[in-house]
């Protein structure tokens, strides 16, 4: 009997020992989370939303000018204005917290591939309500890609569609509806940040699952994993489907520029990690400085250095890709897969190693799929 309990004890202590391995120690954490949140809000997030809200005003004006007088010059002006906003979108898409989270900003602004059949149905039938969840893949930046580049073949025919086409007027009206909705959503989010949410965000400076740091880090990782890694690269490259889906790239109609959008997204993902000021690019309090203060290391190297190096490796692979990912996928999908692999390596460093060091729990799981 005594013998048995001795073994049992060993067995039990052994399992405890194994469990301890999985749970990181709570960091001896005097890190100034208020300073971190302040840098994020004042120097990164609010300037970013301010920038995109301004850009989107110019886009609305350009759309109105185009609608009033569709010709090559107004079309190009609108395309430029849209492109500029779409680039800035890559810098703020990761901040899906507060009002943006409540509205589902990313799902309204950037679901792709766009449902072109649905867009055409809306245009011909006229009675659409873009606020409905079922309408999310008929609007946003991907719908603009279709309306500005994919509605017909070549610029001459596109202009024809807006001038003498059967649904020319309805098409112009739809274009305005789409840019207006983008603009309104961005306005609501910016206004929320500047009229109270900023303080709420910074004051929620604890380290529980509902604290701002834990929440935004989760939102950031969710963005990196699902929207950037999977959405821009993995899904079109066929990582999740077995065979490549070249129609699922971010810009199927403009074609050129998938790489530019991805690089912009990657740059700003890395800048956020390093706490870089939106305009001056000066580094402030950040995930990097947080990790360094904890002296978080992996295999004898600072974790923050490994993460930054991994951002660079991913950038190097992406730089070798065609500007048009559909073309890249059809020519040589292996390069897409290689880029994906480098992006994936940082999922591990960020989601496992960084979160363990910061003692933050993941609050999202892979959807159930039904």
């Amino acid at each position, binding site marked *: 009997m005594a013998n*048995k309990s001795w*073994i049992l004890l*060993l*067995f039990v202590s*052994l399992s405890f*020992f194994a469990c301890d391995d999985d749970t990181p120690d709570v960091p001896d954490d005097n890190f100034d989370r208020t300073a971190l949140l302040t840098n994020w809000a004042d120097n990164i997030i609010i300037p970013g939303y301010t920038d995109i809200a301004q850009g989107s005003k110019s886009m609305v004006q350009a759309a109105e000018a185009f609608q009033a007088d569709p010709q090559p010059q107004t079309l190009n002006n609108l395309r430029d204005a849209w492109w500029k906003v779409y680039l800035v979108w890559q810098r703020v898409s990761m901040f899906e917290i507060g009002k943006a*989270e*409540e509205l*589902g900003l990313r*799902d309204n602004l950037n*679901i792709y591939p766009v449902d072109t059949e649905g867009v055409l149905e809306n245009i011909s039938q006229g009675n659409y*309500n873009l*606020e*409905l*969840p*079922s309408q*999310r893949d008929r609007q946003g930046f991907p719908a603009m890609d279709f309306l500005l580049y994919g509605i017909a073949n070549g610029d001459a025919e596109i202009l024809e569609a807006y001038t003498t086409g059967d649904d020319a007027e309805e098409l112009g009206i739809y274009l305005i509806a789409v840019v207006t909705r983008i603009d309104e959503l961005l306005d609501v989010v910016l206004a929320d940040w500047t009229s109270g949410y900023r303080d709420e965000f910074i004051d929620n400076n604890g380290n529980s699952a*509902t604290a701002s740091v834990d929440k935004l880090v989760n939102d950031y990782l969710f963005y990196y994993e699902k929207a950037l890694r999977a959405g821009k690269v993995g899904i079109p490259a066929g990582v999740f489907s077995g065979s490549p889906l070249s129609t699922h790239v971010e810009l199927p109609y403009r074609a050129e520029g998938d790489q530019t959008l991805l690089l912009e997204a990657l740059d700003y993902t890395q800048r956020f990690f390093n706490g870089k000021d939106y305009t001056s690019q000066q580094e402030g309090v950040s995930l990097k400085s947080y990790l360094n203060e904890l002296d978080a290391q992996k295999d004898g190297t600072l974790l923050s250095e490994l993460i930054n190096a991994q951002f660079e490796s991913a950038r190097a692979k992406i730089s070798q890709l065609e500007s048009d990912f559909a073309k890249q996928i059809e020519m040589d999908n292996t390069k897409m897969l290689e880029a994906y692999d480098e992006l994936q390596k940082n999922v591990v460093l960020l989601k496992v190693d960084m979160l363990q060091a910061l003692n933050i729990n993941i609050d999202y*799981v892979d*959807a*159930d799929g*039904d």
Partner: protein
Amino acid sequence: MSKYFLLLLTATTIFFTSCDKDDDTTPSVEAPATYAFTRNNESTVSFSGQTTRIQMATELINGMKDFSIEKSQLLEMYRNETEAGEDANPFSDADLNVSTKSVRSKVAASKEYFSDNVTDGTAIKELFETWINAQVDEVFPNESTLAEAGVAGQIADGSSTRYVNSKGLEYNQLVNKSLIGGLMLDQILNNYLSTTVLDEATNIEDNDADVLAEGKPYTTMEHKWDEAYGYAYGTAADLADPNKTIGADDSFLNKYIGRVEGDADFAGIAAEIFDAFKLGRAAIEAKDYDLRDEQVVILRKALSKVIAVRAVYYLAQGKSALEASPANYGTAFHDLSEGYGFVYSLQFTHNPDTGKPYFSKAEVDAFIADMLGDGANGLWDVQPSTLDAIATTIAAAFDFTVAQAAE
């Protein structure tokens, strides 16, 4: 590390040694590697009727999401006959239209639970029709309406769009998940695995003497067992070795055996279920009815547990979506609509220690009343504490915790 390994080895050996002691009768029956049984070189396995019903149920739940479908067609998919009781052809699969089988006739229709309780059996069958009707009457007209408390319509759940009634319930999910209990589980546990069916009439004598069902390669008892098997695996990619694709073969019991298997706290349950089906079938061939009935006990416990784990899982997921800031109603409603169906399915579970469901119809009805009773607008008003209380009560009847099922 090797020191620990040695200790682990010692501990494991002792563990296995002590198991062996409880198990002094070595079973003389050996199950084959796959669910393949033959007589005179001919397969004796047959469960095409179960495959058919899973396929009919699949068309029904898909039809409920098709806003252009007629109500009469949905009801015909459920009944496989017209309102006047005549032959109907509601399915896109022609083989299903030819079939005389139907989903409705086997809902809440097990011999053990419902042969002397057609009152409840009929009420349950009709509840499914109520849900089908309500989907067409309440939800379809509001296809392009934004749902709010008291108003049916659509609501975002992440990037998915869900369609709910005025209380936040998705009728298609109620039908889908409640069928897992009302059709699959009830038929398996309380009909085909019940001695009232397995040993009916001269089944034992016939099986003992290898007297085959008329014109068939199997004995009646073998066939009854196969029919139980078919409700779990009837649409598997490999019908004899279904665990290769477990979870991916239907939207009903198979899917959720797979889901529970995927939770590390319950890993192994898929093999446990399949092994029991296999060994029980081999036991019938070997005329070892004690061994067969031991497998029935295993199956009743494990399959009941699958339902309970998923009920608790969805209640917990729904609760955390409601507690999120901002509250995520669309996700919560979707989870809780699924949870509703699994809770409803609990009345078809079978506790081998009592011969009754782990939760009676009255208890299940009370859970549902609680879920919808915190305010006038059902799930729009439900309190996390209410969901927690239901989940805790369910888990307590089984050998797992809410935390184990919740992730």
